[in-house]
């Protein structure tokens, strides 16, 4: 009656094992480490960097415990802070030859001390939220209306030029909010314009009206196009933020989209809000200039002669110098999009660029006059410029043109990203900020941990005293619940915050409810005179329906919190919901396994150790039955 088949025990053992492995990394604490990340958007941290760092460290007689490359940054873990400092100096010397223009940021960091075999199993500790670790937290609002207004404006000027080019006369184009209004003098022009828009501007939908002798056409950005636009703007802003934040050398920045138009930026360990804000707000700029093809220019480029007057020397990414004229043709403002793709004819990777009408006009003029000459695209960050690419002009360019040539798919994607990252797609403003001092964070983590521990101990003592052996089973189940909760949160790589710890404490309180329901039910069955084995069976069986109902309702509340909560409420809700699910497993399935293991084999079970079972006698006196 109270026996589990082997497979159920197998499930329990597997779950416990997995739970143990994945909750383990949280207990190792953190070790000093050196982190290398890119300081410029044009530099990448990859396997090559890793082997360079490895060699340098070996040459200096330093052996890191662990060297990992993850998410664009390289981390080397050391046993002592002393080694860490030495390693930082070594790596700094190797990777950063010129401190005035550092390609890499070499920063001190803390990395989990968990052993390599756990890391190999992808068992990582939870992230600690800023309220537990200290740091700065920003919530940025992306001005989507601004982005769409900007796009509508560029559509308006595009339409104006296109109408002129196609000879559709007598029009006037104006932007009205997020729509473009065109008026015509005759119906034929309107028809022609409509067809043109259908052919060439797939992102616009049109409605026309006639008012006397005045024909009007209203072009609106299609909802799906607007959505795509917003999405792209947000992604681009996030990319740009990534690049900028790397400059701060922050160990583990969090840059996340929140909702449709918000970005959360968390910078652990940073206390200087002003500097952080300054860097977040800084813009990189993209410029297109002609390469100086004069004899002096060539000479300067090839053999390092003097740079001719009116030109400047910049380096390409591979370190080759390019001599570029000072006159700026077009800036990133006129570039509306850059996408990687494949050239249909040569089947080579390419980057498609889209300019707004003004940029297109300039490009056309410049390309006509400078056929077969080279044009450089420069990106300026922190006042320093770098040449992204310098292709030669092979034809007349319009507002859409492509860069192709010897590049790989990855390089094309990279270039497109860099071109786009030149500026923010849409303006942003900081609408919320929080700074938490490191001592406050340490305080919070200690207090949160204490409250979970004391709460857990209090319940354990009570359960054991009140329900005897069954209480012990419940306590073990509760401990398993806590372990599984931590394991799942670690697997999800959730960020643990103070409200999250509070939810953990609450989960303990709520999880014990299921065990109390079961234990009380077993007692009740015994009280009504059921045989011990039958009482255990009935107790678990009957309590199950109640446990399910009450947990589902609690879960509904949790999901509502998850759906509408933000920040701390969300942190609470995630732990709350997972806690409910794990408690169903541990309180019902696992604790029954324990009970079955203990009592199930015994054929003639006389008593159950579940504390006092008291029976009211019919004559009014009571009999208590010991365990």
């Amino acid at each position, binding site marked *: 009656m109270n026996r589990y088949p082997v497979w159920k025990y197998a499930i329990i053992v597997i779950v416990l094992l997995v739970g143990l492995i994945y909750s383990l990394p949280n207990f190792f604490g953190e070790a000093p480490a050196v982190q290398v990340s890119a300081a410029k958007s044009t530099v990448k941290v990859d396997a090559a960097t890793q082997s360079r760092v490895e060699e340098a460290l070996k040459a200096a007689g330093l052996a890191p415990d662990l060297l990992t490359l993850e998410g664009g940054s390289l981390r080397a873990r050391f046993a002592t802070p002393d080694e860490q400092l030495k390693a930082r100096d070594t790596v700094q010397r190797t990777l950063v030859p010129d401190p005035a223009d550092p390609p890499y940021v070499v920063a001190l960091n803390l990395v989990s001390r968990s052993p390599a075999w756990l890391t190999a199993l992808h068992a990582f500790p939870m992230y600690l939220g800023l309220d537990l670790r200290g740091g700065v937290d920003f919530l940025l609002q992306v001005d989507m209306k601004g982005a769409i207004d900007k796009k509508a404006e560029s559509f308006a000027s595009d339409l104006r030029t296109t109408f002129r080019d196609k000879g559709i006369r007598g029009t006037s184009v104006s932007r009205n909010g997020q729509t473009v209004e065109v008026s015509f003098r005759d119906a034929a022009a309107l028809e022609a314009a409509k067809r043109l828009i259908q052919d060439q501007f797939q992102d616009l939908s049109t409605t026309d009206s006639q008012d006397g002798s005045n024909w009007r056409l209203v072009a609106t950005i299609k909802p799906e196009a607007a959505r795509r636009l917003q999405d792209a703007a947000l992604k681009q802003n996030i990319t740009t933020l990534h690049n900028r934040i790397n400059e701060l050398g922050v160990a583990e920045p969090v840059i996340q989209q929140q909702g449709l138009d918000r970005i959360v930026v968390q910078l652990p360990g940073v206390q200087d809000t002003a500097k952080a804000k300054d860097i977040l707000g800084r813009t990189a700029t993209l410029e297109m200039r002609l390469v100086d093809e004069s004899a002096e220019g060539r000479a300067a480029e090839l053999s390092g002669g003097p740079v001719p007057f009116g030109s400047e020397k910049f380096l390409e990414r591979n370190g080759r110098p390019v001599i570029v004229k000072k006159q700026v043709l077009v800036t990133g403002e006129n570039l509306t999009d850059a996408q990687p793709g494949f050239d249909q004819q040569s089947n080579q990777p390419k980057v498609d660029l889209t300019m707004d009408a003004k940029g297109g006009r300039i490009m056309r003029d410049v390309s006509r006059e400078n056929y077969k000459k080279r044009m450089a695209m420069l990106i300026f960050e922190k006042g320093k410029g770098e040449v992204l690419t310098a292709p030669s002009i092979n034809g007349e360019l319009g507002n859409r043109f492509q860069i192709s040539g010897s590049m790989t798919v990855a390089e094309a994607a990279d270039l497109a990203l860099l071109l786009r990252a030149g500026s923010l797609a849409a303006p942003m403003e900081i609408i919320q900020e929080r700074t938490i001092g490191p001592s406050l964070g340490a305080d919070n983590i200690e207090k949160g941990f204490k409250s979970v521990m004391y709460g857990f101990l209090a319940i354990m003592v009570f359960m054991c005293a009140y329900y005897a052996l069954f209480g012990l089973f419940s306590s073990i189940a509760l401990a398993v619940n806590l372990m599984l909760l931590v394991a799942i949160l670690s697997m999800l790589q959730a960020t643990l915050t103070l409200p999250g710890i509070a939810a953990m404490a609450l989960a303990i309180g709520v999880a014990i409810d299921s065990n109390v329901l079961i234990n009380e039910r077993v007692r009740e069955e015994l009280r009504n005179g059921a045989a011990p084995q039958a009482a255990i069976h009935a107790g678990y069986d009957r309590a199950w329906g109640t446990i399910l109902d009450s947990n589902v309702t609690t879960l509904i509340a949790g999901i509502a919190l998850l759906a509408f909560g*933000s920040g701390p409420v969300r942190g609470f809700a995630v732990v709350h919901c997972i806690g409910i699910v794990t408690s169903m497993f541990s309180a019902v399935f696992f604790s029954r396994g324990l009970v079955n293991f203990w009592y199930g084999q015994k054929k003639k079970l006389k008593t159950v150790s579940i504390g006092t079972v008291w029976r009211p006698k019919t004559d009014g006196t009571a009999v208590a039955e010991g365990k």
Partner: protein
Amino acid sequence: MEFFRIHKTIPFMRHALVLNIVSFVTFALAVFFLLHRGLHLSVEFTGGTVMEVAYQQSADIGKVREAIGKLGYPDVQVQSYGTSRDVQIRLPAQKGMNSDQQSAQVMQALKTVDPSATQRGIEVVGPQVGEELTTNGLKALGMVVVGIMIYLAIRFEWKFAVATVLANLHDVVIILGFFAFFQWEFSLAVLAAVLAVLGYSVNESVVIFDRVRENFRRYRKMSTVEIIDNAITSTISRTIITHGSTQLVVLSMFFFGGPTLHYFALALTIGILFGIYSSAFVAAAIAMWLGVKREDLVKGPTKRDGGSEDDPNAGAVV
């Protein structure tokens, strides 16, 4: 150990009217305070700046207030936070100044009074975030209520769903009433606690109604009132033990969790205490007033199988 040695079914429902009047009065009081005093909303809802400043010695709150008052803030709140050396200052948003300038100005003023003042933390929230939180909070509340109602209506019956939700809203309003009366700070964490209470307190009603349904099946001779009384009596030990243990954890949070968890734990405490009471008396009584019948819960043709006609357990007390 055994705490509850109840000889007979306790006739809870006999006192239903009195208890319901009591809850109605507390409810009305809570509503009154909510309307009259309003909630003392945290910066997350109102927008503004909250600074935490630490001193080397015990901080003189009067002096801090005076120093900030000189900067031209009419109603600035200064309170000690956690320890006597830590002070929390809330500044309303001011026109023509951003949060950086505000906090820099305040820190400067504080340092001239006592150079040991250091800024431990700062939180700035724009007004639109606050507005959104308020609407989202209300949405969450609505979704919880509707979700629970639907679930209970499917699993039990609409009368139970209505009774449970009314009882739970009663708890929530009373928690809010406490926060309004004492002008405790209503933060996002407290909102989370309130919604958690909503889910948690439904547990109680569900456990009791589960037993009511079971009793309807088992004891065919009993009247509805007797069945409800019996259900409450036989689950009361579990109710109190569960709440007791949850309360243990919450108290642990209250005492050891530090100032950040203080009001969170407080909201949960009130919720738990009223949860016991409301699910037993408010929910069950409302269900009774709504006229719950055996037919509502025991679906299908009532099988009169042998023995149930004169069930030996019918009317039995435990």
